[in-house]
Structures are given as C-alpha cells and as structure tokens.
C-alpha cells in the first residue's frame, strides 16, 4: 500500500457544549478519496465530531472549540476562514432526508445559485450531472419540477446527496445517512457511497456496524468523547487492539 495522503487532519480537538465537554482532545487523519466510518454508541461524540469538520457546530451558541482541524493543511477554525467557502468544500448529508420544499431542480440548483451561478444552461448541466452521480437521474429526470417532498424517503436522501454534490465539494460528510431508510434504499445509498469514493473523500457516521464494515476503508471507534481506536476497517473488525472496541463491535457492550 502506498502511503495515504490525508485530506483532513484533526489535532487535539476539544469541544464543549456550555460546561459539558463532549470531545476530549481528538487526533485523527482522514485519508483522501477513502471512506472513513465513525462508529460508537449514542452520545459518544461521533456526530458532534463530524459536525465540527464543516463547522456546523458554529450554529450552536453554547459550543466552544479548541484545537485545530486542517483541510489541505489549512486550519478551518482560523478566524480568517470563510465558513461558507469551507462548507462549499466540505459538504454534508444529514440523518433525516431534508430536501427543501421546492422542486427537485431547485433543490439541486440551490447550492450553485448560492455560489453565484446564474446561467440556466450551466445550472441544467450541474443538475443533471449531480443527479447522475447520486444515481437518481433515471428515476427523476422526467419530474424535475415536482416537489422534492413528493418522492420516497430513499429518493429524497439521494436528492440530498445530489444537492450536496452540486456545489462541487471535496469532502462529503454523512451523518447516519441511512438510519431513516428501509433496507433497499440503504443498500442503494451504500452502493452509491462506495462509487463516490473515487472522487470524494467521505466521512460517515453510522450506528450500523455492518454498514461501517461493508462500506468503509477506515473505521474510528468513539467512546465518551474519545477515539478509542482508529485504523483499517478489516483490522478493526477482525482483530481490534482495544478491548472496548472488541466489546462494542461484538455486541458485548454495557
């Protein structure tokens, strides 16, 4: 294996909500064009952590952060960072499909329009390309003016993925993207995610350990705001170094 290049590097990240410390000095390198999965029990900090990678935690008033997160070597918490530009580079897909109550077309075009693309032809191209990348073009190409809320949950989530891809991100954060979906939609999204890694660096939080094992290249196990173990998914799932990891993965946990 060649030495991996790292897209993002987290160094000694500490995070508080008010007086409560949610993350206790995390260090993690996220390899480029690979899928990194975060697993761990509820409340272990994995969702909090993924939200700090594109500064979505800024929206929470009581949230305070120490340490650095570098994207291509630049600290995203630097005061000079343009948060909107950061989020353009580091896209996000949420747990619940959250399309805007607008047409499918307008959903996908929202991001590009936000970043100044007005040309109709250019927008058309972006919409088509993004929907194709999200493997939903064939299902919706004849209904682009239909309200995005009128399609199924699994389709909505792929619309949300397409919407995130439309701004041309380099990193895609996915916070439990399939936990609200049925198994078939889940399988489609997993398939899609593994296809996307040829172009994007993907970070995925999942409650579903099988999903982490099936999809990811690297896995990080979170517990109580610490990263207990991080490494090659094959290693984590066959022979983890830490007992806590072993207990969690094998279902012997608390």
């Amino acid at each position, binding site marked *: 294996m060649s030495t991996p290049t790292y897209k993002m590097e987290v160094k000694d990240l500490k995070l508080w909500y008010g007086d409560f410390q949610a993350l206790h000095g995390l260090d993690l390198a996220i390899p480029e064009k690979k899928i990194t999965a975060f697993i761990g029990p509820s409340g272990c900090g994995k969702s909090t952590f993924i939200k700090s990678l594109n500064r979505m935690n800024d*929206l929470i008033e009581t949230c305070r952060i120490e340490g650095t997160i570098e994207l291509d070597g630049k600290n995203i918490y630097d005061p000079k960072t343009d948060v909107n530009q950061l989020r353009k580079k580091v896209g996000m897909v949420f747990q619940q499909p*959250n399309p805007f109550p607008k047409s499918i077309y307008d959903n996908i075009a*929202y991001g590009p329009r936000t970043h100044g693309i007005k040309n109709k032809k250019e927008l058309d191209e972006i919409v088509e390309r993004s929907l194709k990348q999200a493997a939903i073009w064939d299902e919706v190409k004849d209904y682009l003016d239909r309200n995005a809320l009128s399609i199924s949950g699994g389709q909505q989530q792929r619309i949300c993925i397409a919407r995130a891809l439309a701004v041309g991100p380099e990193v895609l954060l996915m916070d439990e993207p399939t936990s609200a979906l049925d198994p078939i939609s889940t399988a489609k999204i997993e398939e899609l995610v593994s296809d996307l890694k040829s172009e994007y660096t993907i970070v995925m939080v999942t409650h579903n350990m099988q999903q982490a094992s099936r999809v990811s290249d690297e896995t990080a196990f979170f517990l109580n705001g610490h990263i207990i173990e991080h490494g090659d998914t094959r290693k984590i799932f066959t022979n983890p170094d830490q007992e806590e990891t072993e207990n969690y993965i094998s279902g012997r946990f608390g």
Partner: protein
Amino acid sequence: MSAKIIRGFVYLSAAITFGMLGYVIIFILINGVRFLTPDLFAWNSTSQNVSMMPAIITTLYVVGGTLLVTTPIGVFTGFYLVEYANRKNPIVKAVSMATDTLAAVPSIVYGLFGFLFFVTFLSFRLSLIAGILTSVIMSLPLIIRATEEALISTGRPIREASYALGAGKLRTIFTVVLPVAMPGILSGIILATGRVIGETAALLYTLGSASNIPGGLFSSGRTLALHMFVLSNEGFHVDQAYATAVVLLLFVLILNGLSTLVSARLSKGGK
C-alpha cells in the same frame, strides 16, 4: 359500556356546538336579510336611512391602515425573536412574555389605553388615527405569534441543509425559511384582520362613532361592528342592526374561509 357513554357525550357536545352556531347564524339571517334594502347602502348616512355604507368604508380604512402598520412591525419582530435574538437573553424573554400577555388582554383595556394615550394625551381626539393605532397594538401580538410559530415550524433540518451548502444567514432566511413560513404568517395576518373587523369596545373609545365617512386621519368614524352596536344601543333601528349583522357575518365568514384555505396550504407544505 363506558366507551358508549363517552362517545354519546362527544356527539352531544358536537351537536350543542354546531346547534348553537347554526342557531345564531339562522337567527341573524332571518332577522336581518329581510331588511337589507338598497337604502342601507346609500352613500350618505342619515338618521333616517341609517346607511351602513360609510361604516363599510371606514372598516376598510381601519383594517387597511392597521395592517399597513402592524404587518411589517409584527413580522419583523417575529423574525427577530426566532432568527436573531438569543432566547436566553432576559430582555428577549420579557418581549416574548409581553407578547403572550398582550394577546390575552381584553379589548376594553386597549380601548381605555387608546383613549387615555392617543385621544387625550396626544390630543388626537376621537379619530381614525387613534382607532388605527389602537388596533395596531391590539393585533400586533397576533401577528408576532403567528410569525414566530410559522418560523419555528419550518424546523432546523432545512436551515441546516442550507447552511451546509455554504449559504449565509440572510439567504437561508429569505430563500428557504420565508417561503415555507409564508402561509403561516399570512394566516396570522388574516386572523388579525378578523379581530379588527369584529372589534367594538376598543374602537368606541378611540375611533368614536361619527356616522359619516371620515374626512381625514383626524376625523371620527364608525366601523361596521360599531355601527351595529350604536344602532342596537339607540333602539330605533334594531332591524337595520340585524341587517348590518348579516353583512358583518359575511365579512367574517369570508375571512375565516381565507384563513382556513391558507392554513390548509401551510400544513400541506409543511409535511
């Protein structure tokens, strides 16, 4: 067994409610429709024809004037409270509580306040402007509340989605949140309109009861509800009061219909 009793009770309650409503409407229609003569819509009101035309015009003035002032203030206050204010700030808490309290205050209290402040202290006398300003204060909490509710019900997820695409706060609020909240805000405005149309007590002390179309902001007038109140109070034209009630009822029904329509659209959009 007990389920049957409960079900019977539910049906009985529903029957009483609809029965009373139906009785009121039918009673007004029977007593009023007969007296709806062209005379009643004459342009000039005299003590003979007791035309309600000036009252209709005045009602439109008051409603229009009130909405013109109250809508921007109310909507922006709602936006401020939901989108910008820190909920934990004591001042914001106070504003929020004041809004709730104002919504529950009986209208006669507004009337007295309007009389003491606008009519006497600011020497507006009984006038259109005093009536409008009092109505503004009265309807403000309704619009603020409705705006707040509408904004809150848009929920976090679509805002997060917008921010995560690199959109700023203004863009998020105006292109994502506002379209979703619009029907809710509109239904609040309609509710406020309904309240102003039906108001008597507060306007009696501020707008006065002049029977002609107000000549300007500082002249007195009477809205439909006031007109009806005055007619039935004087006791000479009770039949015409009923006819006025029919028109008022029509106004309110139309407004309620509009409001229902808008709420239906709101709940459909919010799914």
